[in-house]
């Protein structure tokens, strides 16, 4: 590893530490300045917020995230786009039509994921209820 890349890492590490200090610092100041306890008569200071009511039930329950299919589609894309970065970087360094054809094939297959999902009705927003089928 050359000196240049060593300094690169040093800078990134220093900014990580700087960010850590900048993030933790306000909490330390708040710990020094803020009151430690509250005068509380109902013992409800640490209660979770639910618009003033006593919370009904737990929040950590299973609930229907209707748009989870979008997240599944994201998986199809996220990694593939990372593959596109090195391709884009060296694209057109030498003139070759083959690059273009390969990109068209790659992006075309990727785009099929959107077409498929569109066709399957992922993008139509309906109540996904199967109880009265």
């Amino acid at each position, binding site marked *: 590893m050359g000196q240049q890349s060593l300094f690169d890492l040093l800078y*990134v590490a220093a900014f990580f530490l700087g960010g850590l200090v900048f993030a933790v610092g306000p909490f330390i100041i708040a710990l020094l300045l803020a*009151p430690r306890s509250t005068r509380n008569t109902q013992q409800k200071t640490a209660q979770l917020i639910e618009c003033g009511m006593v919370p009904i039930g737990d929040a950590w329950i299973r609930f229907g995230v209707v748009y989870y299919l979008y997240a599944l589609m994201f998986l199809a894309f996220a990694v593939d786009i990372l593959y596109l970065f090195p391709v884009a970087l060296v694209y057109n360094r030498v003139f070759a039509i083959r690059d273009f054809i390969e990109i068209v094939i790659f992006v075309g297959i990727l785009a099929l994921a959107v077409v498929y999902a569109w066709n399957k009705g992922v993008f139509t*927003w309906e109540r996904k209820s199967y109880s009265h089928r």
Partner: protein
Amino acid sequence: MSVHPEVIRLLIFLVGIIAFAALNAAYLVWLERKEAGHIQRRIGPKEVGPFGLLQPLADGIKLMTKQLIVPAGVDPVLFRIAPILVMIPAIMGFVTIPFSETLVARNLDIGLLAVFAFASVNVLGLLMGAWGSRNKYAVISAARVVSQNVAYEIPMLVTVVSLVMVSHTMNLTKIVGQQLGGFWHWNIFNFAASPLMPVAFLIFFVCMLAETNRAPFDMAEAESELIAGAFTEYPGMGFGVFFMAEYANIVIGCSMATILFLGGWDCPFGLYPGVHWFLLKMYFLIFTVIWIRWTYPRTTFYGLLNLSWKILIPISFVNLLLTSAMLKVF
């Protein structure tokens, strides 16, 4: 004992950039409130100091003297590290942003990738904070913030890929260097590379709004339906750190838009290029971000996701293919 000059430079840049981030976080809140006031025919903050300029200081003191409550039943680890995890990448993103030709902390060769890599940690922190809060509103917000961020990351990155194709480098200083010499050299007007370049800029800007959870895409903290969304349970400084990170992310996003599309520190008509042009463009974009927030109502979540998948992603792919074709033709 002698200190390596590079270490001194590093410390100066580190302190300078943290000060820059803190100052921006404080005064962008002021700008936002002032601008919101004037857009809504109010005055905005005016009591504390001239033009309300000392308002951020008063807000800071107020936040710092609030009791740090950790509500009963929250996940103690996730709840505490979430604001820190959101803040750290926001500062790390600044490591390679070139404010001018010489004013850059470290000119990384993979600068472009590094900024987006750091920025993508943001969503993890928000998810941890929201889920760890054990609050119904926060948990709903957690599901929203993840699907929103992953949906908008794709068109943003595809746009960036087509830009990398044009510039052949991920070094941000070199990307700006290719755009010097007047506004017709900027990437936004680079019609030889792709006729859709202004559209690509628009896609990037919209995605930046969505990635930083700004209105009209602020589904994560939709006040009218989710109280404060992911931040509901955070008292005082926890909330404050989340907000400083949000503003730092806006600064990074607008800086990236400036660097990639608007020629960075280049002057539009060839006069005195320098850091002032960079700041001018960046603050104009930030002004626009705030302007949009107070002009448009929040979209529906359905419309938000479909805007990305049905419009932005197909157009950005078309732009990618068009760019690759045009590069072969010309």
